[in-house]
């Protein structure tokens, strides 16, 4: 178990990643609504960025907590 500063830092990063994921998801929804025919491409790009963010959040969790 990490110390309190570690855990707070990890928590902050996870909050940031959560906000980022929400933004990605929201923008992807907007984009798909605007151009439904490009849904496949948008989804792939969304998953890639989501995965990058997720890697960051998990890295913070493992190194911090």
């Amino acid at each position, binding site marked *: 178990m990490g110390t309190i500063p570690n855990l*707070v830092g990890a928590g902050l990063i996870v909050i940031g990643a959560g906000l980022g994921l929400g933004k990605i998801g929201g923008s992807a929804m907007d984009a798909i609504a605007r151009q439904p025919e490009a849904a496949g491409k948008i989804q*792939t790009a969304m998953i890639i960025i989501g*995965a*990058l963010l997720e*890697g960051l959040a998990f*890295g913070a*969790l493992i190194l911090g907590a």
Partner: protein
Amino acid sequence: MIISKKPVRSLTAILIGLISSVAMANPVEDTTHVKTETASHTEQVAHETANHETEAHTEKHEALSPKEKINEHIQHHLADSYDFTLYSDEEAGTHVGFPLPVILIDDGLKVFSASAFHHGETVANVDGAYYKLVHNKIYKTDAEGTLELDHHGHPTNEMPLNFSITKNVFSLLITSLLLFLMFTALARTYKKGPNNLPTGFSRVLEPLVLFVRDEIARPNIGEKKYKKFMPFLLTVFFLIWLLNLIGLTPLGINVTGNIAVTFCLAFVTLIITNFSANKDYWGHIFWMPGVPAPMKIILAPIEVLGIFTKPFSLMIRLFANITAGHAVMMGLLAIIFLFKNLLGTGGSIGVSLALTTFISLIELLVAFLQAFIFTMMSSLFIGMAVQEHDHHDDHH
């Protein structure tokens, strides 16, 4: 972003979020947990001098509260082990399962069954040498099983070179065999002729192979060069997927949730990416074109770091996702024991079953998604390395 529009509300949200993480950092149970640990530890040390380590171990086991027992069980499940335990009766001290071979190199090759350890309760005697299993690690001891502990409570005994077929190794071998059988059957149909339809189970595999080719490799690596990397991408995709799925069975296998396994997979990506890289790739790393000279000097170390952070994130992502999934599932199963008094036996089983079923379905999706993401990211990194220069400008 939303933050700028509603600063007060998001600040409160962040504060509330922080409160929980601070409170989680040092719960009341945690301090008592430390106390019992030290108490049992001193007890253990006291017994240690009298060479009754086994007794101290069982005493410590009985003293655990249900919560600590569950924690220990989850830790045990996430780790690798030398046998498959399907069921164990704590009161009778019996374990139902089957042991796996232990292979040690210590004055010559020594092969014996892990049942000789009796789950760490006894000392295994192999050709005059004594070995003991402590916290899933094999130590060399004397006939009584004496352990020399350092001040952290870790044994300092000699550890022999260990090439055992553990649970994870066994699962990897089985999965490789399955993959081999599945895909040689598919390959055989293509060998017969270009227009042959696959039969049987191969018919399921063909669309998946096409998916990896058309959705992952082609768009990310490029039409001209993707063929060279298809064997790697297909292998990685199906290996990770199958291992993830096997991890969802009640056998308690957690291969992709082992950081050594994911490290090796990511390491292969690192090797392939950098050895197939062209001049442009290295040019972009050490002397980024199109930016002022001082920026080039600043960018070079960042880009060099980037070579390693990309596979590192691959490693962490797969490991953490699968480990987290397994931990959540075990935690939800533990509801049966933790909420027995509150909800009654039937109620707690019902709640646990509903939640576990739900999370299992999500894990089925995650099993595929993680395989897909690992393959996708690998092909993306490879694509960056083999891209031609004029293509590069189109993308940005």
